[in-house]
């Protein structure tokens, strides 16, 4: 009961609120009802997380001044927005706009709750990877505002040179451990039950094994897994090797990895910009490098994009579109969002301005090689099998190639239902 009761309670509470509180929860003024009146009295409701709410307050005030449409910001927990939005949109009580991550998109489209967004000529002003990420089956749905990806963070005092390949990295790391300069040859945050396919993906990609086949138009084909190709199996063999050599350790969680790196116990840390503040506060002399290749091809990380979506049930499509494209999609707002969240802006002009920060520039250079994390709904199914198989391989259970094949088979059967 625990599982489902939350969503039921939400739906139930919604339906019952019709009896008890319908009036109190209704958005101020029902737009579109009195369409004879020339004066527009509706407002835009935006679901946003606490970090971004502050920035949006200013731009919402500007929008109200200039366009006469009030913007109501509702602060939500970022992780809860997707599911609540999917549940609430069909009732007509959902918001007009939500903030969200690009990998929600497949699920939002699958449920018919998000409306296409025409960026028009503005599309070319954003980073290509950001617009691609916000697209699904050839249609653009969201306005991107930030782009982030992982890279190799190097402790310059322990590892003075950037490694060319992952083997070089291992050799240098192990040498440092042998000399006593470091305790771990390499650090990456993994989970004891689910490893971390997201962080290990660049290494896997360097063997030429993406998750799904990429179609001619550059989008993922969610029906054809590419995980199971020869590159994938070669990666599985390497995972075992790295696990046994202690390069990868599933007991080192993300928090432990950060602590140990900040304590100067390793030369290399595969992580994202979110850990940089802790690293620089810890007084580590660091550099940000491209991820060294393990399988010969470029080690491309997943790029995560965040942006804003318009609800398909919104009665205020024009106002929402205007607000996103011409207010959120501006230099000042994108820069302000970058300053509060630390994620590189998606708008090119703001992104270039942010290059003055060396960290942003370095992560951005690595991200330029990256591919958006797949946003197809089938990804939900992939993560769990992918992670637990990686754990088994790293920890030395069974035959790596066979485990990998079993995983591909299991994922394939779940995707096809």
């Amino acid at each position: 009961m625990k599982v489902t009761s939350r969503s039921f309670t939400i739906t139930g509470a919604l339906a019952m609120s019709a009896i008890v509180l319908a009036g109190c929860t209704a958005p101020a003024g029902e737009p579109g009802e009195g369409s004879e009146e020339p004066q527009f009295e509706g407002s835009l409701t935006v679901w946003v997380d606490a970090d971004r709410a502050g920035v949006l307050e200013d731009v919402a005030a500007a929008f109200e001044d200039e366009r006469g449409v009030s913007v109501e910001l509702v602060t939500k927990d970022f992780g809860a927005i997707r599911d609540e939005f999917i549940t609430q949109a069909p009732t007509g009580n959902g918001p007009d706009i939500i903030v969200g991550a690009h990998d929600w998109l497949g699920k939002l489209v699958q449920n018919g709750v998000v409306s296409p967004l025409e960026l028009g000529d503005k599309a070319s002003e954003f980073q290509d990877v950001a617009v691609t990420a916000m697209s699904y089956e050839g249609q653009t749905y969201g306005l991107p505002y930030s782009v982030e990806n992982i890279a190799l963070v190097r402790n310059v005092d322990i590892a003075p040179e950037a490694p060319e390949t992952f083997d070089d990295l291992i050799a240098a790391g192990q040498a440092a451990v042998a000399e006593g300069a470091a305790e771990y040859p390499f650090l990456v945050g993994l989970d004891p039950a689910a490893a971390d396919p997201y962080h290990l993906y660049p290494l896997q990609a360097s063997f030429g094994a993406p998750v799904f086949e990429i179609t001619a138009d550059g989008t993922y084909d969610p029906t054809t897994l590419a995980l199971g190709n020869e590159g994938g199996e070669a990666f599985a063999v390497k995972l075992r090797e790295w696990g046994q050599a202690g390069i990868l350790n599933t007991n080192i969680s993300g928090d432990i990895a950060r602590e140990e790196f900040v304590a100067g116990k390793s030369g290399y840390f595969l992580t994202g910009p979110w850990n940089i503040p802790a690293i620089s506060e810890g007084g580590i002399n660091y550099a940000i490098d491209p991820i060294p290749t393990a399988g010969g091809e470029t080690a491309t990380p997943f790029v995560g994009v965040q942006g804003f979506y318009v609800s398909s049930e919104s009665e205020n499509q024009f106002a929402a579109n205007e607000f996103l494209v011409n207010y959120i999609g501006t230099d000042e707002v994108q820069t302000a969002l970058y300053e509060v969240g630390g994620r590189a802006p998606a708008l090119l002009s703001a992104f270039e301005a942010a290059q003055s920060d060396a960290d942003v520039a370095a992560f951005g250079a690595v991200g330029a090689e990256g591919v958006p994390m797949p946003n197809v709904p089938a990804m939900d199914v992939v993560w769990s099998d992918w992670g637990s198989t990686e754990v088994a391989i790293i920890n030395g259970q069974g035959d790596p190639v066979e485990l990998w094949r079993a995983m591909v088979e299991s994922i394939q059967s779940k995707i096809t239902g």
Partner: protein
Amino acid sequence: MSNTTPGAQQPLLAPPAARPSGPRTAARSHAQTVRGLLIKIALLGIVDAIALFAMFILVMREQWLVFAIAAVVTVIINVIYLRPGRLPAKYLAPGVFFLAVFQIFVVGYSGYIAFTNYGDGHNSTKEDAIESIIANSLTRVPDSPTYRLTVVEQFGTYGFLVTDPDGETLLGTPEQPLEEVDAEEDSTGKAVSVAGWTSLGFGDLLANQSVVVDLSVPLSDDPNDGALRTPDGSSAYVYTSDLVYDESADSFTDTTGGEVYVDGGDGAFVNEAGRELQPGWKIDVGFENFQRAFTNEDIRGPLLSVTLWTFAFAILSVASTFVLGLFLAIVFNAPHMRGKKIYRVIMVLPYAFPGFLSALVFLGLFNEQFGFFNQVLLGGASIPWLTDPWLAKFSILFVNLWLGFPYMFLICTGALQSIPEELSEAATVDGAKPFAVFRLIKFPLLLVSVAPLLISSFAFNFNNFNLIYMLTGGGPRDIEAGVDAGATDILITLVYKVAFGEGTGRDYGLASAFAILIFLIVATVSIVSFRQTKALEELN
């Protein structure tokens, strides 16, 4: 006789209380009833006002069923509180109302969901799905120019006045493809008005956006050239659609391949090859979810071991927490002990922390290499607390003991203190040893009041999703066996994995069906146990 009959007509309180103490008390008492009446009227007024407002909105939204329910409930509430007498109803009404809202409705609703295909991909109505498919299939013609746009209106018909990239001005409506017109231009060369038509400003646009956003003005008589649409009211782009909806046939046709998608009866448009269009919509599916629940391979395979572990987990959790809680309750109930209150407060602390938070803390403590248990307590051992199937089971029980004993401690303390001291004194006088006093007198008396709580604790642990999910996620998984179920998965977490982690994603229909099945198990166990406790009660 003559006394009682007229008295019943008057307010109940006034006559008997008033007479002996004279007129002053009578006046005060009268004032009290007046004040009570006023408060009652005010409260009832507030309730009625809210109800009326809700009903007003429900009428606007044409929610007739909910409106009818709201109206009936409001009338009943007014009748109950305005008519004299019916005291039990007055007390029960608020509780029954909230019981209906927060319990019966929710349970009934999940029951209803079990008979639908509600879930990812089947989230809303068919109309919404058709609208979404149409909107998503409209794609802008690649590299097509942007037309600067003024939306114009004439006798209720909306038209697009556009300036094409070459500077020519064109006018069209959904019925009339674009034609060249002479129009007034502003300083940038954008056509802003044309004779006979009214131009819409931004405010007008917003007021009519739901109409304007659906306008589609064809470029020419050939529909394959595409049509102009506007996403923002100030610029228009050329769109083509590769899916055309035919209302009379209730089907979509793919204009590129000629494939036809029809309503396949499963809540989605589907073509002959079985490919579904997204999104689908919610339909009633009868007992299909229950059928799937029983035939699902991922459930059937590990069902026996998972069920056994679920019972073992629930029973052992109740037993261990009860034994520890009872022991501590007896110890801290000893009359000569000092600082009892402080100890008791400390004992209750684990109960005061949110359970999922404690689970996360324990997750860190149990870490094989860096955790407190292995590092500090066991001096650097590497015991796989959470990754070995049997140790993981033990760890789960251990954490649940930590989380659960304060509750048992509280109820046992309460129950012990309610047992009269005379009983044990009498037994001691009769020559009973302390343990015999406990076993023969205190414990049976204790069980009478505590047994129902043990049963509810069993029911809670049977579905203790938070702990399992947060601590082990059901793992460790035997990856080589190829089943999803892990060593610590209980029924509810296994069901979660199957209903939310396969195929199209979250399947609320299937999840509700499972929830009902699990409810039946728990209900059966509880009913049998309650029968047993009744027997226990009679025994004493």
